[in-house]
């Protein structure tokens, strides 16, 4: 009997600790990690010019080319922020969900895997352009984030985009835009 009571007490204490542990803020999330340098290479490019305004205009142009709308900017700091709403449905995911729902219907259940399929996403981009350390070049760095909603309008995913292809696409567009704007097209 006594043992049982002690066990109960201990488990209550343990439960309390667990709850407190979950609710607290984790440490060290403002510390640069090892991957920071790699990410910098992925997200950063340098351009042989000292005309920051021209670069920023080109950045705004590329973002518009990619279908983004500008949310915020501060030219004196070389900063532009933009966002875009887009479709997030994927054929594979949908087909899988339909298959699962059919299976559960055959088994007599009410599966609703469809509701968990991704539906739409908002992609946020922020660009900082600043003179490089030696002052002869302009360094441009872009970061992308996305929030994904599922069919029942719940947020299903939030993430920083780390796909090299996406960054490459942005910088290809930027190089083109700088050229086009220099030629006044």
């Amino acid at each position: 009997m006594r043992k049982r009571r002690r066990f109960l007490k201990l488990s209550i204490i343990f439960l309390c600790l667990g709850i407190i542990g979950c609710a607290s803020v984790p440490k060290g999330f403002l510390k640069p990690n090892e991957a920071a340098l790699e990410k910098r290479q992925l997200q950063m490019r340098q351009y042989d010019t000292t005309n920051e305004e021209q670069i920023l205009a080109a950045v705004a142009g590329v973002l518009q080319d990619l279908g983004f709308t500008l949310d915020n900017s501060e030219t004196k700091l070389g900063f532009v922020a933009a966002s875009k709403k887009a479709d997030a449905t994927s054929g594979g995911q949908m087909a899988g969900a339909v298959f699962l729902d059919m299976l559960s219907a055959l088994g007599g259940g009410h599966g609703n895997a469809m509701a968990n399929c991704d539906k739409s996403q908002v992609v946020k981009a922020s660009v900082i352009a600043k003179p490089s350390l030696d002052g002869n070049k302009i360094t441009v760095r872009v970061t992308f984030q996305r929030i994904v909603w599922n069919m029942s309008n719940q947020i299903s995913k939030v993430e920083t985009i780390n796909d090299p292809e996406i960054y490459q696409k942005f910088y290809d567009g930027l190089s083109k835009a700088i050229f086009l704007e220099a030629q006044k097209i």
Partner: protein
Amino acid sequence: MKKLMRCCGIFVILFSIAVLSGCATTAGKAFETSESQVKLRSMQTRAFDTTDKQKMMQTVMSTMQDLEFVIDKADLTLGSVSGSKFLGYAVVTMTVTVRPKGEKQLLVRANAQYGIKSVEDPETYQDFFTALEKALFLTAQQVD
């Protein structure tokens, strides 16, 4: 019967206390801080020996980008930068303000929020200022 009535009475009183106190605190909860104002300022603020506000703000933004933040807003006149980053499913938002202190220094203050909680841990802010120091090649000085 009397006993039952008394029980009911006590129950009603307890219930109304619970309900009323619930109403009073929810708005106040948004303004609660567990640390004192002075202590919060001291952990969130550092002084740097420079007066170049523009360069400082650009370095703050680069440091935030290094820490995987996406910059949402920036204003040179006000000296403020806000950004957000994702940690799993939690959203971390941070605002950094830069303002002059005396003739020769700049004050940098950062405050971060993790989900619905304010970050009130000195070490976390120290991590940010260490990263900022490295990017600036300057020493961060504790402000009293």
